[in-house]
């Protein structure tokens, strides 16, 4: 019986872009348990939303997470809109889908790059991030800002995408798809990549369900669920299927995200083809009252907002349950029995977003 040692992993660690600590209980090289220690990024954002006006809160919730900022704002706006019974114009519903999928594209590219970096494939990391800049250029052109684009507003969107911009976007997406084909070959077939990912950090279908995993982690374990299929924004008018893989290991989680990149490109094309003419925002008057829970599918999984309003310009309570929080139990399960060298990849495979989790 080997002696147990506790190894602190983080908060500042080269593979982690954000501070989280895992205390790894080790027996020689094997992890027998992982104890998470969080709180390094906690800001008290939910309390802050109670002091700001309802329209100002859009800018606050966008800063829960810079990577999926658009989806946070979307979820919040949808909640307030359904509390106030506002019908959003058709054009803005489609524009929301387009920006949402652009965010998914850039988030997945970012993650694929970080994964490549974690298994030491530096040039693949650079390639993914080079491709990602095409998406960032689209964001900058359509919204004027690269990461936090602030295009959501209560009742619709703040900016329109005109026909010249549409041409540019569709051209960029064609180029992006060609580049994706190149990196997909490496990710799916390369011998070294397979060695690092296949059968690493497996989570079974039953465990994923029982531990409440969401998003790509859940779909990689064979559970077919994607909140977009419920048809919020304009997703009910677009044709797509949840992407599912069966093996539940890091390779499957990588493949889900890689295939979702193609899916996002396809959804954006469909949305542009169906984009109706018309206004981009409905007028909003008065203040909401009542309580509501809304959900949106983020790149990392589904996010849940609970909003309680009291008829004034300030909310009583805003509660956010983010996808990474839901995936941490699954992570703790999957690191058991891994060797220390595989820990960075296992942690990255859930695409952790600590600033979401801690707010």
């Amino acid at each position, binding site marked *: 019986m080997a002696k147990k040692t506790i190894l602190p992993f983080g908060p500042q660690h080269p593979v982690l872009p954000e501070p989280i600590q895992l205390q790894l209980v080790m027996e020689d090289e094997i992890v027998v348990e992982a104890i998470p220690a969080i709180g390094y990024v906690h800001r008290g954002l939910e309390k*802050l939303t109670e002091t700001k006006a309802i329209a100002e809160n859009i800018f606050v919730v966008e800063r829960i997470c810079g990577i999926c900022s658009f989806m946070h704002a979307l979820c919040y706006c949808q909640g307030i809109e359904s509390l106030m019974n506002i019908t959003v114009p058709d054009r803005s519903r489609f524009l929301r889908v387009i920006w949402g999928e652009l965010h998914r594209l850039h988030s997945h590219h970012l993650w694929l790059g970080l994964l490549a970096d974690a298994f030491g494939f530096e040039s693949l990391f650079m390639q993914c991030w080079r491709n990602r*800049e095409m998406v960032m250029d689209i964001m900058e052109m359509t919204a004027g800002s690269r990461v936090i684009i602030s295009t959501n507003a209560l009742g619709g969107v703040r900016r329109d995408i005109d026909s010249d911009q549409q041409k540019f976007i569709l051209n960029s997406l064609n180029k992006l798809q060609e580049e994706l084909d190149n990196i997909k070959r490496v990710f799916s077939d390369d011998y070294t990549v397979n060695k690092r990912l296949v059968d690493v950090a497996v989570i079974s279908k039953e465990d994923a369900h029982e531990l409440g995993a969401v998003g790509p982690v859940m779909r990689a374990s064979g559970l077919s669920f994607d909140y977009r299929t419920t048809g919020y924004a304009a997703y009910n008018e677009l044709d797509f299927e949840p992407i599912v893989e069966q093996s539940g290991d890091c390779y499957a989680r990588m493949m889900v995200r890689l295939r979702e990149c193609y899916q996002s490109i396809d959804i954006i094309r469909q949305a542009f083809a169906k984009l109706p003419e018309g206004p981009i925002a409905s007028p909003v008057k008065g203040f909401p009252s009542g309580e509501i829970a809304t959900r949106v599918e983020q790149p990392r999984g589904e996010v849940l907002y609970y909003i309680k309003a009291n008829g004034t310009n300030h909310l009583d309570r805003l509660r956010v349950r983010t996808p990474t929080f839901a995936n941490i139990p699954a992570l703790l399960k999957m690191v058991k029995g891994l060797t220390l060298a595989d820990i960075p990849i296992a942690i990255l495979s859930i695409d952790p977003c600590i600033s979401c989790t801690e707010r």
Partner: protein
Amino acid sequence: MMGILQTAATKSPWIVHFDCGSCNGCDIEILACLTPLYDVERFGVLNVGNPKHADILVVSGTANYRNARVLRNVYDQMPWPKAVVAVGACASTGGIFRNCYNTLGGVDKVIPVDVYVPGCAAKPEAIMEGVLQAVQVLEKRKETGETYAG
């Protein structure tokens, strides 16, 4: 020997990045600086994971009660001469989170900051400009022989 090290620090500054309480917006822009479109490596800038290898500390996000000690720890481990770049509104002043109960404000409440980069999120061009200004701070410290003030 000291001469070689200090020349290396200004000709090829190595940076270490620490995320205090950022929303990731600035972090991904810092990472974007390292990648082919912006490519700070052409200035000799290299991102390292170990604070003991680094000349410039790039911080994003607000300081809070829990990470202040970690930030101080990272800063203290860096060898002199060193410089600190606060990236984004949060790291500079606390930004949108300055009134939150768990934030102390900008990172200058915890460690001395040399360069402030504005923006929410700061653009890669601005971050690169900030790092290059920090190099000038390093050069000045080398010339004047300024010593570690703690």
